[in-house]
C-alpha cells in the first residue's frame, strides 16, 4: 500500500498523453546496448555459438513482419514459413539457375517472389479472421511444402539445394576470411536494424494506428470509413516481404535450402517465438527468437524429447504470462521502480 504522499509524487498511475517520458530514453538506451552487444558477440563467443546465432537474424526479421499481422492487425498466420520458403528457394534458384552472385539483387528479386505469392494468398485470406485465416494460411504453406517435395526436377525434393555465399555490397566475397561469422554476421545485423527501424516507422504511422483499429473492432472501423480488407491485405504483403528477406539470409546462413523450411512446424516455431517473447511488445518477437534458439540448443543436448519441454513451456506462457518474456521483464522493472 502506498501512502498519500507517495501517491502524489509517484507518477506510475499518471500517464502522459504521449506515453513518452523517461521510459522512452531508457528503452532507447537498452536497445542501443542490445545492438552493441550483438555487434561484440563474434569477438567473445566461440564459433559454434555464432553459427548457432545466425538463424536468429533471419527469424527476427520474419517475426517483425509476422507480428505486424498478429500483434497489430490481429490476424494469426499458421503458415508464415511459406514466405521464408519462397524467399529461400527464390535465392537458391537465382544462384543455381540464374548465376546471380550478388546479395542485394538476390534480396530484391526474392522479395519480389514473396510478393507474387502473397498477392493471391492475401486477397483470399484477409477476408477471413481468427481460426479461418489461420487454417487458410496453414493450407497454403502446406501446398508450397508439397510442391517443394514433389517437383523433384526443379526443387531436388527433400535433398534441397545447396546455396553459395553471395558477394556482399558488391565487393565482399569469401576469399581469405571467415565469411559467415565475419562480414555476413554484420551484414545480417545491419539488415535487422534497418528492417526494425522501418517496421517501427510503420507501426507508429497513420497506417499502423489504422491497423490497430481494424484489430480491435472491424465493424466499428468500417463505420469510420476504414476499408478493413484493404488494410489487412497491405499488412499481409508487408509481412510477406519481411518473410522473403528472412528466407534469403536463412538460406545463406544455413548454406542449404530444403522443404522443411516451409513445413508447418517451422510456421509453428515462428508463432511459438512470438508468444515466448510477447506479441504485445514491438521487440518481444525478437527477444523470443533469441530465447528460442538458445533454449532449443540447451534442451536438445539434454533430452531427445525436447519438443515435450517446449510444449510445456508454451502452455505455461499462455496461462501465466500471456505477454511473454517482455511482459515479465516490464512487470519486473515496474516492481523495481516502485
Amino acid at each position, binding site marked *: 500500500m502506498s501512502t498519500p504522499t507517495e501517491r502524489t509524487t509517484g507518477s506510475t498511475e499518471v500517464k502522459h498523453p504521449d506515453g513518452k517520458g523517461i521510459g522512452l530514453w531508457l528503452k532507447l538506451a537498452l536497445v542501443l546496448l542490445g545492438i552493441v552487444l550483438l555487434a561484440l558477440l563474434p569477438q567473445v563467443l566461440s564459433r559454434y555459438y555464432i553459427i548457432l546465432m545466425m538463424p536468429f537474424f533471419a527469424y527476427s526479421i520474419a517475426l517483425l513482419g509476422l507480428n505486424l499481422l498478429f500483434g497489430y492487425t490481429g490476424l494469426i498466420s499458421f503458415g508464415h514459413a511459406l514466405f521464408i520458403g519462397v524467399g529461400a528457394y527464390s535465392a537458391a534458384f537465382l544462384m543455381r539457375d540464374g548465376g546471380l552472385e550478388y546479395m542485394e539483387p538476390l534480396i530484391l528479386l526474392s522479395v519480389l517472389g514473396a510478393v507474387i505469392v502473397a498477392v493471391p494468398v492475401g486477397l483470399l485470406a484477409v477476408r477471413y479472421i481468427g481460426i479461418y485465416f489461420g487454417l487458410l494460411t496453414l493450407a497454403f504453406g502446406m501446398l508450397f511444402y508439397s510442391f517443394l517435395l514433389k517437383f523433384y526436377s526443379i526443387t531436388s525434393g527433400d535433398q534441397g539445394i545447396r546455396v553459395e555465399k553471395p558477394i556482399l555490397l558488391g565487393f565482399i566475397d569469401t576469399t581469405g576470411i571467415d565469411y559467415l561469422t565475419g562480414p555476413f554476421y554484420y551484414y545480417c545485423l545491419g539488415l535487422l536494424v534497418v528492417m526494425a527501424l522501418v517496421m517501427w516507422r510503420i507501426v507508429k504511422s497513420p497506417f499502423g494506428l489504422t491497423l*490497430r483499429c481494424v484489430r480491435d473492432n472491424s465493424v466499428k472501423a468500417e463505420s469510420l*470509413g476504414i476499408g478493413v480488407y484493404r488494410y489487412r491485405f497491405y499488412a499481409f504483403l508487408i509481412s510477406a516481404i519481411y518473410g522473403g528477406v528472412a528466407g534469403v539470409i536463412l538460406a545463406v546462413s544455413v548454406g542449404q535450402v530444403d522443404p522443411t523450411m516451409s513445413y508447418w512446424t517451422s510456421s509453428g516455431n515462428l508463432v511459438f517465438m512470438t508468444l515466448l517473447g510477447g506479441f504485445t511488445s514491438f521487440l518481444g518477437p525478437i527477444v523470443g527468437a533469441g530465447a528460442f534458439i538458445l533454449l532449443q540448443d540447451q534442451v536438445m543436448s539434454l533430452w531427445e524429447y525436447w519438443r515435450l519441454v517446449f510444449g510445456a513451456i508454451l502452455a505455461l506462457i499462455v496461462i501465466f504470462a500471456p505477454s511473454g518474456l517482455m511482459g515479465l521483464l516490464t512487470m519486473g522493472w515496474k516492481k523495481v521502480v516502485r
Partner: protein
Amino acid sequence: MLHAVDVHKNYGDYVAVAGVTLFIDEGEFVSIVGPNGAGKTTLINVLTGLLQPTAGHVHYKGHDISGAGPVKLAQLGMARSFQLVAVFAELTVMEVLQAASLTRLGRGMRLFHSLGSDREVRENAEHIASLFGLQDQLGVKSGQLPQGNKKLLDVASAFALYPEIILLDEPTSGVSTSDKHRIMETLVVASKEIGIKSIIQVEHDMDIVFGYSDRIVALYEGRVLADGSPQEIECNEEVMRNIIGREPVRNA
C-alpha cells in the same frame, strides 16, 4: 437528404422490415421508436448500408446507397454509432480520435509518416475531445473508460468524421439517468459546432425522444405506424398506448 423507399428486409422467413418509406430532410432531428423487434436496428443497418435491403431502395444525396457498405457511406458524409458501445479497447481516447481524423483526411494509408508529428490530425482529435468533455482522458485506454464516457467516445469518433448526417443507435442505452441528459446535451451542442445537418436516432427513453426530436417515427412490426411531430404523436392514441406506453394527450 436521405430517402428510403418501400424498404423490405427479411431474414429467411422472418420479416424484420416490411415496407418502410422514410424521408429525412436537412436540419431534422428524427427519433425512431418502437417496441423490441419492431425492426429499428435493422432499419438503421439498412440506412447505413451495412445490410442490403431485400427490396426497395435507399437514396442519399442523389446516390442509390442500398447495400453500399459503411466505408463508402462514411466517404459520402454519413456516420453512425452503435447500440452496444463500440470502441477500440486497446487504443487511447487520443488514438481513437486520431484514427477517425485520419480517415476523414484520407491519410490512413500513410505508411512512413510520423503520426505524432501530424499537427492537423492531433488538433482535430483534441478539438473533438474537448467538444465531448474528454480532453482530460486523452491518454486513457478506451476499454478502461466508464460506461458513459465509452458511449461518448463512440459517438465522438463518428462526429470526428464531420458527417452531414449521423445515425445513432440508442445513444443513451446502458447509461445512468443522470448521464443520459449529459450525453444528449453534449451531442446537440457538438452537432451544431461540427455542422451536422441531420440526426437520426433510435431511442427507448421517451423523455429523451420527446425532449430532443423534431419528428418521431413509430415502427411496429416492421411498418411505420405513425410519423409526425412530438405534438402529433402525443395525440395519437394507437402509438401512445402500444409503443410509448402512456395515455395520449387529450385535446381539450
